[in-house]
């Protein structure tokens, strides 16, 4: 490789004609729309996956492990049989895995933001949030992939959702949409905290209570009162209930509204905080 490098730089002599041709000031195209800029950053996220495919490990191996582990760990004890438990727990495990994967958004932002390329992005006349939206578009692909992997494992193990394909797709769409909104928390922490480790630390601190203190594994009736109160306001619990209802073919409009409203609030609040930090960085 070094030989190639040396050879290339030996050959190169800046030619006034060739450079002049690219410098001739043509008409500048109009600035891209917010959507187009965001999609372009989304494309960047895809290219990163293409060049570093190992990073898909957390959306493939991790979800398979979660599904197998919890189905066989609790299945017999809680529902008497793993197949029966699977009907209840699979949508929950799907939500839990995807919500947990959202934290990698913060890690990616944190490790990327110090690089010189961000200085270039920030001097471009584009819609400012598009850089961050691009990350999240790439991450939505990852969330969809993780959901599909879990669904596949579930179907193999005997998950038979009554909602059919339409219900399952609607459930996954709601989950991916909410995760997009939820990820703005991590873009904020990614910009705010100084190291990847601290981003991971804070993520765990937030994600463990939100995912475990919920209705993912058991229905909350047996929980003590204060815990029921927490589950009642836990957005992840509402998301689980909504996704479960969609996949079961009995959409719970109250829960779905709850999820959509909290998603919108997350975007408004943490999107604003993220952009405030991004502009000051």
């Amino acid at each position, binding site marked *: 490789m070094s030989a190639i490098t040396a050879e290339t730089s030996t050959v190169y002599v800046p030619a006034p004609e060739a450079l002049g041709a690219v410098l001739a*000031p043509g008409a500048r195209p109009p600035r891209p729309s917010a959507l187009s800029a965001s999609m372009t950053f989304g494309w960047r996220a895809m*290219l990163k996956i293409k060049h570093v495919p190992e990073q898909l490990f957390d959306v493939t191996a991790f979800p398979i492990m979660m599904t197998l582990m919890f189905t066989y760990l609790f299945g017999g004890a809680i529902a008497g049989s793993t197949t029966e438990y699977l009907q209840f727990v699979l949508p929950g495990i799907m939500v839990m895995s995807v919500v947990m994967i959202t934290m990698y958004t913060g890690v990616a932002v944190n490790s990327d933001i110090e690089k010189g390329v961000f*200085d270039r992005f920030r001097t471009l006349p584009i819609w400012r949030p598009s850089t961050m939206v691009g990350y999240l578009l790439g991450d939505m692909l990852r969330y969809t992939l993780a959901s599909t992997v879990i669904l596949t494992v579930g179907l193999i193990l005997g998950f038979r959702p009554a909602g059919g394909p339409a219900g399952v797709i609607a459930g996954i769409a709601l989950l991916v949409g909410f995760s997009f909104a939820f990820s703005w928390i991590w873009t904020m922490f990614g910009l705010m905290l100084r190291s990847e480790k601290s981003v991971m630390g804070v993520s765990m601190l937030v994600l463990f209570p939100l995912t475990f203190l919920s209705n993912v594994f058991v229905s909350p009736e047996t929980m003590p009162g204060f815990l029921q109160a927490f589950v009642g306001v836990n957005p992840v619990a509402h998301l689980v209930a909504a996704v479960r209802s969609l996949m079961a073919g009995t959409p719970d409009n109250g829960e779905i509204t709850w999820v959509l409203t909290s998603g919108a609030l997350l975007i408004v609040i943490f999107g604003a905080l993220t952009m405030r930090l991004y502009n000051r960085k």
Partner: protein
Amino acid sequence: MRESEKTGLAIEASGLVKAFGGNRAVDGLDLRVPAGTVYGVLGPNGAGKTTAVKMLATLLRPDGGEARIFGRDVIREPDAVRGLVSLTGQYASVDEDMTGWENLVLLGRLLGHRKPAARDRAAQLLEAFGLTDAGARQVKTYSGGMRRRLDIAASILNTPDVLFLDEPTTGLDPRSRNQVWDIVRIVVAHGTTVLLTTQYLDEADRLAGRIAVIDHGRLIAEGTPGQLKASVGAGSVHVRLRDPSQRSEAELLLAKELNAPVLLDADPSALTARVPGDGADHVAAEQASRALAELAAAGIAVSDFSLGQPSLDEVFLALTDRPAEKTAA
């Protein structure tokens, strides 16, 4: 009409201030950069060069003062400024995980080109910068010189009106440095105003029409390279004597002939004298050769001598630590 076709000032900054905690990185900086020229900002590490460039490129919000790029205010109209400028940062402003081609297509799309146009432009730029063969490789496999070229290619994708180059040759080998210099000359010949920061007087001298010397966030001198060198002295003449015992005699002679202080080096047979000159190299050379002739006439044998350009060290010494001499010169 392109902004770059207008005459007048490309960059106009007055009283710029940026503090990080208690440290005033930029402390009341004034800059006036004529359009269509290369302007050098010279200073040591930590002088505030990068901070100043970041404020002018809208990456940092100034704590005080104001700056305009072709009349557009960097604080009040950052988006208009972003449409005019482009920045090649001190550390490669390209994505290392992506290929050279992908970097350029990404940027082309972000600058508003449609997909086919962005692809054409990327191929054209790779060709013009001698990177066609490397275009399909990830940038992290590039040499320092190739990375820098890609970086500049990305910066001129839309032929900016003002191009900021923050220490573009730091860490490059001499050949790559020459390539960057050639590129800068071609870019400015096509009407783009270039503001270049550097630690090397030599580089500013070769490229810049005017140079600002900054230290501790303040402007300490400004002018053409000739004026700047004249204020410092055109260079130094280093002399080594065959017989160290003659050094004090030589010191007196040189001081008289050059009318400048003479420094005694650690080597007992060597001494260094500043050549005042008027900034023109040939005058300095004449003065130095006359001084050497005097030494020979006085019977002082010289085993070795050299005439050096003033180094950045000497510029700073002259401009900061010895302000009295600056006034005298």
